[in-house]
């Protein structure tokens, strides 16, 4: 048998695998519980002892996306037969659908603001990081320190001035306002992380491209960017997770048109008691975009997490 000293033995791999999977399952339990709850009926969701096996139902999702009103049994009997599964679920509770809820709009706001600010942070961060990494900039170290210093206190500490400024500037409760705010918070992280990644890309590659007949910008675009993909992907995930999950500013600065999902989800309260399946459904859907984004960039992220320590 051939074996390599750097490659762990199959038993070591087996032990490591078991540990990792066990740990993953334990940390996943709360998430799984939320997802399971989202497919329960309201009575199942609060039954005691908790139900692990149950008849799945889409009631939570229907309640999440609709507003409903209670009607009298006579009225219910006089209605034409239900047109779709949602109507059917609602009528079983002696109610009819009155209209769509605000969840769709709030979710869309989260998508616009989360991805918008991530894109802007990465775009500006990459250009700034490249400049810091490659050009002789006067006071570069001081500037970098200044950029980092914006993160030396929790951003919410300046919530009141921002609130007042935003009201003055008409940015309160606007998509643009939230995108700018999250970008401002994220950009220092983006510049620092990306500078580290770009520093690790040897200059010779760009120099070769310059000699091969490309301009500096083309060299940046064709040679540096593809190699910084790892760093850009992992930075983008960090930025998105912050913007996506941000709660305090969202509560403070948005209430209507630009309200994001995090402040909205807790307000989903059912008629007569907390509607846990609807809240769980909201939380589950809320998790999905970040999960999909992370899975899409997983290949890059796995390398990125080691912060460029891997062989090029």
């Amino acid at each position, binding site marked *: 048998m051939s074996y390599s000293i750097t490659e762990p033995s199959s038993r070591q791999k087996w032990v490591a695998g078991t540990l990792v999977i066990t740990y993953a399952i334990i940390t996943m339990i709360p998430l799984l519980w939320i997802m399971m709850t989202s497919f329960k009926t309201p009575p199942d969701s609060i039954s005691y002892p908790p139900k692990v096996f149950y008849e799945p139902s889409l009631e939570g999702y229907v309640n999440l996306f609709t507003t409903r009103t209670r009607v009298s049994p006579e009225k219910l009997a006089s209605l034409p037969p239900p047109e779709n599964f949602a109507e059917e679920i609602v009528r079983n509770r002696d109610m009819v659908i009155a209209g769509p809820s605000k969840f769709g709009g709030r979710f869309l706001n989260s998508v616009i603001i989360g991805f918008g600010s991530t894109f802007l942070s990465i775009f500006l961060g990459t250009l700034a990081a490249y400049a810091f990494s490659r050009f002789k900039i006067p006071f570069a170290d001081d500037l970098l320190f200044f950029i980092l210093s914006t993160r030396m206190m929790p951003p919410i500490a300046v919530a009141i001035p921002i609130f007042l400024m935003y009201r003055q500037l008409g940015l309160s409760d606007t998509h643009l306002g939230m995108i700018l705010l999250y970008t401002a918070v994220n950009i220092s992280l983006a510049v620092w992380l990306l500078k580290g990644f770009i520093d690790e890309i*040897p200059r*010779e590659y760009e120099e*070769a491209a*310059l*000699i*091969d*007949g*490309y301009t500096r910008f083309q060299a940046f675009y064709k040679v540096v960017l*593809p190699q910084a993909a790892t760093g850009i992907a992992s930075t983008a995930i960090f930025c998105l997770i912050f913007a996506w999950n941000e709660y305090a500013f969202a509560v403070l600065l948005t209430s209507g048109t630009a309200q994001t999902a995090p402040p909205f989800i807790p307000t989903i309260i059912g008629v007569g008691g907390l509607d846990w399946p609807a809240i769980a459904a909201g939380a589950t859907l809320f998790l999905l975009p970040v999960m999909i984004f992370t899975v899409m960039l997983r290949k890059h992220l796995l390398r990125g997490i080691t912060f460029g320590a891997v062989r*090029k």
Partner: protein
Amino acid sequence: MAEVILEQLCKSFGREQAVIDMSMKIDNGSFVVLLGPTGAGKTTTLRLISGLETLDSGTVRIDGRVVNTETPAQRDVAMVFQQYSLYPHLTVRNNLAFPLRSPILKTPKAEIDRKVAEVAGILHISNKLDNRATELSGGEMQRVSIGRALVRDPAIFLMDEPLSSLDARLRADLRIELKRIQSELGSTLLYVTHDQIEAMTMATHVGVLQDGKLVQFGTPREIYENPGSIYVAGRLGLPRINILPADLFSSTRGRAANIGLRPEHVEYGTGQEASVKRVEHLGDQTRLHLDLKGHAITVLSPHGNPYAAGTTVKIQPVNPLCFDESGNRITETNP
């Protein structure tokens, strides 16, 4: 293909002067080899010509035009880097095609395919074209990096030790190929190497650098037979030239302080007695390491090596090179 003229180039990095007052004329179609120990400024010279480094003072002319303010792309030079910097995210094929696809060349696709296949054939990497650049051995990377220059037809090729990490056989093959391509296309080439054979066989001219200065420029034969100083004499010749005090042998003359003894300057059987310390059989030649009054001398043994370690041999210099105290050459016409 172009003539390149360097006029009094100077470049320093902080207090370190990397290139000092360098002037050189690289004729159209010539193959110029730069020799010098590590840190002599060879790479810096190439980078100044290519425009990757800005000049402190001096002028670079390519084809008569002053290119000091031009970008590397505008200068139309091709360069093989000392650390072969292939684009790691591209395949070998795309690495080779990269210069051809530049906005300056904008080569048609069919032409790109033809060029890439041709160059890959010359460099024996046709079977690796679809590998990622990172999935190659060091020698293969180096060949791809040469290929990335060869697909072009630039004003001048700049090559920084392009054959250094190849095995002896491949190096010999590529040496001949490079020379053939250069003379067929009539390209102008500036080439850095530490390899004696490359310098002697490929160069039309050799420039010897010492601490950032060009100390001698001439044909390989001139540099070998007529070095201007001990330093230059030491750059070519295997085994290296032996530098000995002039009074070691009685037959010395004039103000020479040292004599330089290449193996061919030694006659056996007469003169001073030296003891044979070690005998090295290199296959095609046999080297004798001698000791003469405490001075180590390395020479080539005559055919059929009659000497063994521990014996003594008489040697006598024949027309050695003479140098004064500061290491400069003293020629016979000017004793």
